[in-house]
């Protein structure tokens, strides 16, 4: 958080705010309303908090009442639920997933672990503060929060989406360099994802002074073309096969 405040972010006028046409404004209002009433949630069980999501989704607490549905691929999801601790191995996938989600997208941090390490503050295997790596729109306290608390959180997020306040995804573009720096600190300098975040930022007119910086330069230096991942296969404990995998 400290680092965050040090960086001076000029507030760029977003595309939506600059519209003056009243019809367009009504349209924006409608879209925001529908966004708040239709949230597709990527059900990625990053941690133990995921165990309270099935109850929240199913009959007893029925999230569909709020228009929330689970989605299986990041492309279709609006909400990334980080259900508790993220191990460093998972965090890479989470960032990959996040960057593949379509904007506007929202991140919810559930449980203590996403805030300050929680139960696993001593662990060498988990990342401690989610907001250093991804912009988080909402936190739900608990270890783990009950389904009711999750629903309350969702309702709060709905209000914020409707009022247009939930815009963490813009922050990711505006301060990409800072986020990338933290990611590189944890994953090493050769960390890269397939997404062209800088390009997207300028495409959405969200590029700011914090979008590019030393870390993005480092990324550009280390960037390599993506290659199919090599997997070492083994069948029945003896036979070995080499193959390629699609990621």
């Amino acid at each position: 958080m400290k680092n965050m405040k040090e960086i001076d972010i000029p507030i760029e006028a977003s595309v939506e705010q600059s519209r003056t046409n009243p019809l367009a404004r009504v349209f924006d209002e409608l879209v925001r309303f529908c966004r708040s009433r239709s949230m597709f949630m990527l059900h990625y069980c990053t941690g133990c908090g995921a165990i309270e999501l099935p109850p929240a989704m199913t009959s007893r607490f029925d999230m569909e009442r709020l228009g929330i549905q689970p989605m299986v691929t990041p492309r279709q999801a609006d909400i990334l639920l980080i259900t508790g601790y993220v191990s460093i191995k998972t965090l890479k996938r989470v960032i990959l997933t996040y960057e593949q989600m379509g904007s506007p997208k929202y991140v919810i941090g559930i449980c203590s672990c996403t805030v300050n390490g929680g139960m696993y503050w001593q662990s060498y295997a988990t990342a401690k503060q989610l907001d250093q790596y991804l912009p988080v729109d909402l936190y739900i306290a608990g270890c783990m929060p009950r389904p009711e608390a999750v629903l309350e959180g969702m309702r709060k997020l709905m209000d914020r989406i409707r009022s247009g306040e939930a815009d963490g995804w813009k922050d990711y573009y505006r301060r990409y360099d800072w986020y990338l720096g933290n990611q590189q600190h944890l994953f090493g300098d050769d960390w890269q994802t397939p997404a062209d975040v800088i390009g997207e930022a300028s495409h959405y007119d969200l590029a700011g002074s914090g979008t590019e910086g030393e870390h993005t330069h480092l990324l550009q230096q280390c960037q390599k073309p993506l290659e199919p991942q090599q997997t070492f296969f083994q069948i029945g404990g003896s036979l070995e096969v080499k193959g390629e995998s699609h990621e």
Partner: protein
Amino acid sequence: MSKTVTPWLDNLLQEIEGIEIRRKDSRRVRIDIAADSLPTLLELLRGRAGYVHLSAITCVDWIDESQFELVYQLWSYESQSLVSAHIRIARDPGVYVSVFDLYQPAAFFERDIHEMFGVYFEGSPDMSKFILTEWNGPPPMRKEFDAEAWVNETFERKEYQPDWLKEITEQGGGIVKSPEEARQKKP
């Protein structure tokens, strides 16, 4: 219910040298044995005494003695008893033979011990990383690896500035003992 475990134990005593057997209760037997003799023991246990289930292999890092202890938990469905075979191997170089040919579950445990402790098992089918594929540090379960220090070095603790705390600080109070300090105070 529990059947006596005496006859085969006696046989074992005769066949293997340097073996120490302690009976903990009617179902638990502890065997301490030289590392070289373990495969023989396991072969006997599996072949003749019906200990077909390898419940677990545990590695214990006795850093002060510069040794790794390997504990093999074997269960017999017939005699319904558990034998734990303890061996000690040198911490350096930390190499031992795999028992995969006798017990297939060993593959998982040996792989796990390899990545967590750095013990290499010769003849194990797969010594590649499984859990820690993206970990570049030392084998984390070794006693010399101080996870807490590593965490303190790598991550920072969140510093909250809630209003109430600001208020109290203005009045001259504030955090007098953070958890980190409290932990450091312990001898």
